[in-house]
């Protein structure tokens, strides 16, 4: 039987409504970042924090609370402020419990990010205690980036990455992409639960 054209069109329209339209928003609302669980060997390097104090990275990361690491720089224009806003909001959400997480930002511009620059950056974001910004020699910073499979030869080609160290077992959740506060909080809670 030959199907009239207008019926064909109607069928196609219905199929589109059923198959495509619901799928689009459902997928759009999906998680937009990539998540994986990794193990990393943290290199034994000494870095400098925003107060100019030397810190041994291994000791800082080997914590019994979740540790979150990102790679940013002080004069960054686009994704670093977004990552840092994520840190700020996590600290705000945790409020009195903000000591239950250790936030670490490691510079990818060690030439420019002196303790003074890093301190001013944290002040600009109204960071609470528990968020440290680290710099160091370029060689040490490169070593750290390589250890976390996050090496970039130049800061201008960086990408949004958060790494959460789970206190039990010491494995890392690798989160590639920008997260909402809710998503970030959920990832933190997951790390705490395990």
């Amino acid at each position: 039987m030959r199907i009239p054209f207008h019926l064909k069109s109607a069928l196609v329209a219905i199929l589109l409504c059923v198959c495509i339209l619901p799928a689009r928003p459902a997928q759009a609302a999906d998680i937009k970042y990539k998540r994986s669980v990794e193990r990393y060997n943290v290199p034994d390097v000494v870095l400098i924090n925003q107060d100019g104090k030397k810190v041994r990275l291994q000791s800082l990361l080997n914590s019994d609370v979740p540790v979150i690491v990102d790679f940013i720089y002080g004069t960054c224009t686009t994704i670093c402020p977004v990552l840092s806003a994520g840190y700020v909001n996590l600290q705000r959400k945790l409020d009195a419990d903000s000591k239950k997480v250790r936030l670490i930002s490691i510079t990818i511009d060690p030439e420019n990010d002196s303790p003074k620059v890093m301190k001013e950056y944290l002040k600009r974001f109204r960071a609470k205690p528990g968020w440290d910004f680290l710099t160091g020699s370029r060689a040490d910073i490169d070593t750290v980036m390589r250890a976390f499979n996050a090496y970039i030869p130049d800061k201008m080609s960086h990408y949004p990455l958060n790494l959460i160290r789970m206190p039990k077992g010491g494995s890392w959740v690798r989160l590639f992409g920008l997260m909402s506060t809710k998503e970030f909080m959920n990832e933190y809670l997951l790390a705490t639960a395990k």
Partner: protein
Amino acid sequence: MKDLIRNKFKHFFRVNFGHALLTVMIPLLFSTFGHAESVPPNDLSHAEIMRLGERMYREGILPSGKVMETFIRGDVAVDSSAFSCSSCHLRAGLGSFEGGVVTPPTTGNKLYKPYRRPPSFGDVADRAGRHRRTKTAVERPPYTRETLATALRFGTDPTGQVFNDVMPRYPLTDRDMSILISYLEALSSEPSPGASSKQFKFATIITDDVSQEDRQALLLPLQTFIAQKNQQMGMFNDFIKFGYSPTIDMQFAFRSATLDIWELKGPPESWPGQLAAYYNANPVFAVLGGISNSDWRPIHEFCEAQRLPCLFPITDFPVVSETDWYTYYFNKGYTQEGEAVARYLNRLETISTETPVLQIIQDSQVGKALAAGFRKVWKECEQQEVTTLTLSSQQLLDQAALDKLLTKHKPEVLILWTDAELLPNLPALVAKLPANGIVFVSSGYLGKKTATIPENVRDRVYITYPYRLTPYVGSKVGGFDAKVPILASSKDFGNRRITSRSIAMLQQTTLQGLNLIYDNLYRDHLLDIMSMQMDVTVRDYERFSFGPGQRYVSKGCYIIQLGPGLDPPLLQRSNWVMY
């Protein structure tokens, strides 16, 4: 089947109801009830609207003086004290590409025209029609003031496409929105003077305290650069004559260029008047290089006032500022050497807060600049002020008086910001120090004679060295930076490297800015482009690094010692960059 369809629709509305409300209903409500943004506020002068708008754009401060509150990535609250519109769209408003994110232009000139992004390889559109990686729309119709207000409030363009999550959503009042939009309309609306589709006009600045030899060392690379640009323009014109049609981008890569030489004579107080006369007679797009043995400040301030880019002058006395915008420097000159000593001492484990430090400054511009750098960083390191004496060059030659001072202050660390006249007396000074006592000097101030520091005290003397130590291997075959490792040696002391630094400035940084400017002939845009370039390795410094607002591209300075001999090896005692 019926149930399936019903469930699908139920799911659709459940998931999207809130979103739909936000993206459709609220903009509609605003468009119904709020039209104030469609006209600029009539109770403010144009100048006041521009001032308030610029403050919103650059600093994220509302006309009320409060910070702009915003949301990114849906629910990430942030205020504009952390970052503002110009952080991503940059000062000229032409946007940026950084961290895998394309930030499109936000000037009225661009926004009120339809936009179509040129196609590129691997340009796979996602469901919203944007490039998968860079997330920019392929095309959109022109904005109006109303649709622009909707875009800023809700993150949707005139076709309803949703912006990348990194673009904040600004819940501004109609009045504040109107001020910001008026500013965007005026931003980069008129091309800067000194540039046209066919030509760039440049100047260089030379003061009358510069030797003929140094003058030629500067002019040689500059005039070669201008000749090369004009030769390329000639070749391009020949192609056109033979019927070649340039692509859109190609035509912007070829422009002729001119170079005026602005000679400044007499006392520095008279320089601003001379500069104004040169500028008014023939405005230029940018100042390329330049050279002076005096303080660069009068020229720096003139360029700030005229909003005139001044690219990498040869000066040991740059203005050290964290906010000034228009002059790019190689480094902070003598100030940077002083800073390096403070950083090195701060990390030296053999000294403590009790260690007596004596700083002797020769009463000169150089001595003061070195001491200023030391003092600034020493204070940042929260160290106690050191004992400081400023002596004339005659007093510095009075050995008996110096002995008395050392006996009185008993320093373990002696910082000598003096010229090379003092060097023959250095062993006598070192002999007055305790066995673990050390001395710091500046290779910039000692110049060529740094290599003559007496051998018997070389193990006690630490020297600032703001140039490359590791072998530099050029990237080209032949030419000045052929692939031959160039090693630093004591012969480099006192060499101002005028030609090689100017070549690096032109070929490795400025050219990139000029090539990428296309038809956006705005001085601020040139500086924006240059600030967003990748780091480069150059002959004279270990690294040039860039970033928005960064204006001193070489950030390092070594502390070295001399090995034995008449042509002593340079012994590295610190990292290039120290904290």
